[in-house]
């Protein structure tokens, strides 16, 4: 809804142009905003005018006007002075304030609608009815980006996102919690996932450089209907969570490229614990020393290539082979074989996931 400060700013600007003092009152006779330090009109006079059928009236050297939201009066505007000119300027002020009230209401309604849409709080029939009322195209290619800021309530991030994407037709921007900005982007027919990844990178880089804040950007899949937007939002949320656990060094997380991490994220915790117990019957992953861990990571990073891993670790090939055999003896898994390597890799990811759960429980 429109704030008193916005009304104050508006009448201050009008005064600076017209040199006429204005005040805005609610229907119960309480002052909302004024350009003067002291009011010469009594509260009772305002209430009497509010209850009268007149739309405007000249009383005691003041022009009184009713400001209507859609139908019903919502505020009373008083312009100081008498005569035609003041009356005309008063009407202009009323017109401006009415437009502002309607615009703010629509924005609030849109925001409210979008938030409920994302959180699945609307019936299917309501989604289409309300979208139509709010002039939101129901059939349009869209995707959802979640922009998570490091700190809560970072207004500069919202300003940047609104300035970048707010003016594009079809885009919707809102917040669902203290740290997340949601951008529902309208896409053209040709948009593909590479384009979305570019957009996510642009959001990250622009917020880094302009607002100077660290952010993570996650993106759901492309949907064609307004009713499917919540699905894209949930996917983006999952991408964000999975990204934080398994790809913590990255800042852009695309749902469609999450890979095996997405699968592990959806496994029940007890199943994960059972899996770890079954795989690591001898030595547990937390018992691995740093050298073993870096060897394993480098070996996986080099697609199980012994020579290349040895080169990158600055060790002799035989040293690496010795380390891998030692690992095989202590875990029962020889990661030089593809099957064991897959089991080991998944087990390490599951272990990571369990650590994350413990930390956040």
């Amino acid at each position: 809804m429109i704030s008193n400060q916005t009304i104050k700013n508006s009448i201050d600007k009008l005064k600076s142009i017209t040199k006429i003092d204005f005040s805005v009152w609610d229907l119960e006779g309480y002052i909302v905003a004024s350009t003067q330090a002291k009011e010469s009109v009594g509260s009772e006079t305002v209430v009497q005018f509010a209850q009268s059928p007149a739309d405007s009236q000249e009383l005691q050297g003041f022009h009184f006007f009713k400001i209507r939201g859609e139908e019903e009066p919502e505020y009373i505007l008083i312009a100081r002075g008498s005569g035609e000119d003041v009356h005309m300027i008063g009407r202009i002020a009323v017109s401006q304030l009415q437009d502002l009230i309607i615009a703010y209401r629509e924005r609030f309604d849109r925001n409210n609608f979008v938030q409920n849409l994302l959180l699945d709080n609307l019936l299917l029939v309501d989604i289409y009815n309300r979208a139509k009322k709010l002039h939101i195209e129901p059939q349009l290619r869209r995707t959802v980006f979640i922009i998570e800021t490091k700190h809560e309530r970072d207004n500069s991030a919202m300003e940047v996102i609104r300035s970048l994407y707010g003016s594009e037709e079809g885009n919707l921007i809102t917040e669902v919690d203290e740290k997340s900005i949601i951008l529902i982007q309208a896409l053209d027919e040709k948009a593909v996932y590479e384009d979305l990844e570019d957009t996510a990178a642009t959001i990250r880089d622009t917020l880094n450089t302009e607002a100077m804040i660290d952010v993570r950007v996650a993106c759901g899949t492309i949907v064609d209907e307004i009713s499917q937007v919540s699905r894209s939002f949930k996917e983006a949320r999952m991408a964000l969570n999975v990204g934080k656990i398994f790809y913590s060094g990255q800042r852009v997380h695309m749902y469609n490229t999450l890979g095996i991490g997405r699968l592990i994220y959806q496994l029940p915790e007890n199943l994960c614990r059972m899996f770890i117990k079954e795989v690591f019957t001898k030595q547990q992953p937390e018992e691995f020393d740093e050298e073993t861990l870096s060897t394993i990571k480098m070996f996986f990073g080099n697609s199980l290539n012994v020579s290349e891993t040895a080169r990158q670790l600055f060790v002799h090939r035989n040293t690496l082979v010795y380390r891998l055999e030692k690992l095989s003896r202590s875990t029962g898994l020889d990661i030089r074989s593809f099957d064991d390597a897959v089991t080991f890799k998944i087990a390490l990811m599951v272990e990571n996931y369990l650590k994350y759960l413990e930390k956040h429980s």
Partner: protein
Amino acid sequence: MASLSLEHICKVYPNGFEAVKDFNLEIADKEFIIFVGPSGCGKSTTLRMVAGLEEISSGTLKIGDRVVNDVEPKDRDIAMVFQSYALYPHMTVYDNMAFSLKLRKTPKDQIDKMVREAAKILDLEKLLDRKPKALSGGQRQRVAMGRAIVRNPKVFLMDEPLSNLDAKLRVQMRTEISKLHQRLGATIIYVTHDQTEAMTLGTRIVVMKDGVVMQVDTPQNLYNKPANLFTAGFIGSPQMNFLDAKVTPDGGLDLGQAGKVTLPAEKAKKLLDGGYAGKTVVMGVRPEHLNDDPEVVAKSNSVLDAKIEVYELLGAEVFLYFTINGANMTARVNPKTDARTGSEVKFAIDVDKVHVFDKETEQTITN
């Protein structure tokens, strides 16, 4: 402007991955320093730690005399230009440049002064009223630079700022950035994976690989005196040729069937003093140090015989591609050469320019 000090900086992610390992560097005031290396080598992570966008796991980072490990990015007195910049589409160039200052609640008159000064530096004065749509790619890039300049920072951080531009514009903007550095007299840290950008822009280059600093030196020294096999191979295009060679008892290099290389006395001594006689080392020679001029070949006692597999004329020079002992080789020769695909060619090796590396440690034995 300011100096920077990175002391034993490490970055370890929660999953145990070490992205940056014991990074040490002193950056002087007004220096243009380049972080270069292949994808995933930790150069962007290091830059992001300097920016404050990534937490430092251990080590100390100073900007000037102030330790800034726990200082928020906006309070570090830095400005950044990153790869995927976006201009605000409905704002003019002026407003685009002023936007971050407005966010910081800078007074209007100060904003105006800073924007106009930056526009003057970047030659954008006549474009201040234009919207981004009406700008060329190069002009947009300059506006992105302008957004950093208006902050009047101590240090500029640039992460592959030219990567999204086409080749022609990239060359043009490279020159612009170089001029900008001279005009601003600023300290700049610039990340790139493009060694040409690194060589042309930097006063010093930090070569990185797998989170480790391989070498820090001037472009000229990196090219002429690489400290290890990785730097030797990474810097230079086409890259340095490498051949396994056995060190002879007199300090020469035996290339097997490909021939022998007689090294200058100083280089031979280093090999013998290092106990390399009889051991296998890696010989490195740059493509321009292989000469097919018959007169030079006749005088040389270090010659390679090769059959040309590909002939590439580039106008001012010719690249000849061939294989020796199973290794792919390139020679950069005079365009007047008679060599063509299929020709049998003798190349004289400029032994003064030969590099020798330890095969196991990959460190340079002699340059």
